[in-house]
């Protein structure tokens, strides 16, 4: 089993990318578990026909220690095991603690031992803004961190910050930087600035997703391009990234 974490600036397309990678891997027979680490609980909607799953924090609040895996892990498209940490409503509580508590709960319930996924993908909200958001990259969780970015300045800035966090935690045996995934927001888009960042952090761009209106079209249909437009060029690019991640 390998575990990876996907980070990146808010709104850059992490959940869309994660869901398409999960769907692509599952289509090839790989057992995938996608864990959304976001209070909004919307990481896996594209794998579940637009339906928001009940989150770990919601069910834990209701059931306490009687919480069971069947309450929080669901099979989505192509059998992808879907799970959402959830968290507090906007402006209240502590989202970071929600991620910590949820991931600890999955461990306690022996989720990885019982479902035995080949790959676990943590889809993490935005930047590494507090201890809770670093949880998926800690020892015992993801082995590699991939950052989704466009070549836009603010996106690269967030990418640099996340890379810096990975670098800072090296002494703690946390996850290592697996590389960047370029999600082009416009067409054409220049890669040069991002290549400079790659040099700074001694990493590489492992895959590129060209701007394609089919992504939006699939999203409007509450599904992945892997399912709706499997022969499209953009579906192929997701499959290529999936292959780079799960060798």
């Amino acid at each position: 089993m390998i575990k990876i974490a996907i980070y990146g600036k808010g709104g850059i397309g992490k959940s869309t990318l994660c869901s398409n990678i999960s769907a692509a891997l599952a289509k090839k027979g790989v057992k995938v578990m996608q864990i959304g680490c976001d209070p909004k609980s919307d990481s896996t909607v594209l794998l579940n026909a637009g339906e928001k799953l009940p989150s770990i924090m919601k069910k834990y609040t209701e059931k306490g220690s009687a919480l069971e895996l069947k309450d929080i892990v669901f099979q989505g498209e192509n059998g992808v095991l879907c799970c959402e940490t959830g968290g507090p409503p906007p402006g209240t509580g502590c989202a970071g603690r929600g991620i910590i508590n949820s991931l600890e709960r999955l461990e306690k319930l022996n989720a990885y031992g019982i479902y035995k996924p080949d790959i676990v993908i943590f889809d993490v909200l935005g930047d590494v803004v507090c201890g809770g958001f670093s949880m998926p990259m800690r020892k015992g969780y993801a082995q590699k961190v991939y950052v989704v970015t466009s070549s836009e300045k603010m996106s690269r800035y967030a990418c640099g910050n996340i890379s810096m966090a990975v670098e800072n935690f090296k002494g703690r045996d946390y996850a290592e930087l697996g590389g960047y995934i370029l999600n082009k927001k416009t067409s054409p888009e220049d890669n040069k600035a991002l290549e400079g960042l790659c040099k700074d952090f001694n990493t590489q761009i492992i895959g590129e997703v060209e701007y394609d209106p089919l992504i939006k079209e699939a999203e409007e249909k509450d599904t992945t391009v892997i399912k709706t437009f499997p022969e499209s060029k953009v579906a192929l690019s997701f499959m290529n990234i999936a292959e780079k991640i799960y060798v």
Partner: protein
Amino acid sequence: MKNTLKIISCYSADTAGVCSILYEMGGMVVVHDASGCNSTYSTHDEPRWSKYPSNIFISALTERDAIMGRDETLTDNTVKAAKELEPRFICLCGSPMPALIGTDFYALASEIEKKTSIPTFSVATTGTYSYIQGAGLALKEFIIKTSVYKKREENTVNILGYTPLDLYINGQKERIVKLFEDKGIKVNFSSEYSENILNASHNLVVSQSGMEAAKYMWENYDIPYMCALPIGEKLSKFVLDIPNIKEPVFLERNTAKTSFYILGESLFSQSLAKALSLEEGIDAGVVYTLEKEDRAVAPCDYTTSTEEDTENFLKEKAENIIADPIYKHISPVNAKFMSLPHFAFSGRCFEHNIPNLMCDDHALKEVIK
């Protein structure tokens, strides 16, 4: 408001459990918490504080350090103190504030161990669970980190889970030691530092705090365990059979219906119920307000987690109650209430009235008089 304690007290928290179980082991416990909180863990919840020395420190976490994630304040100060004190081990544990900011205790312990070469482990307590959980995890981590299996020592029993939070410092520990030593059985108290804990032939679990460690040693080192306290003469004889057990042993109680209930630490209450049955012919049930082992639950027992629930159950079912005096305030007025103070619940309020029930029929009779 359902989960709010309005009348009764709350039990000591997980952090106090860590400090208590490691108190006499010669290590250094560092609680990552705001300055001033040390008195909660090492005096209010610790009756040994004025009698025996122990290295329990508070990191004095400030709001600024918490916001800025300055873990190095904790690690640097711990390393500095450890180099001066040369403890046998270091244990880091937490409190609500580091729990919320997600302090990675596991990583910090590893960093401190690299810098000091002293065995270091962590228990990521949050201050929101019971002392049983903190003590249980700390004992297990302590064994994993510091004990080495060399050779099985027959006729040697580890006493697991002893803390004054459940077994007060009024001679209870000494009576347990004497019980075994009089029969030529060697005793290791897990509350005292011992590198030989994994060499023992058997484990006696004397509170739920010892359960995690007992299960770990059974699963990994084939050391069978017995869950019982030697309360009264007959149960003491039963406990003395421990060198002959080959697998885990729990007290069997089959009472289906009763109006006689005990509230307190789960393993202590089960043992007391068993002793009452053996010595006095009383069929007693247990109301669980703390963690318990399911395999030792009798049909008449009841598990509760809220004050209202406990109050309603006692009102409906109990005519005779043995519990800490604070429980009297939610017990039915018509019930016979027999006081048995529990340090983890009422602290120093009734500490001088805590009886020593170990191996003593007379003290048992006094409780139900």
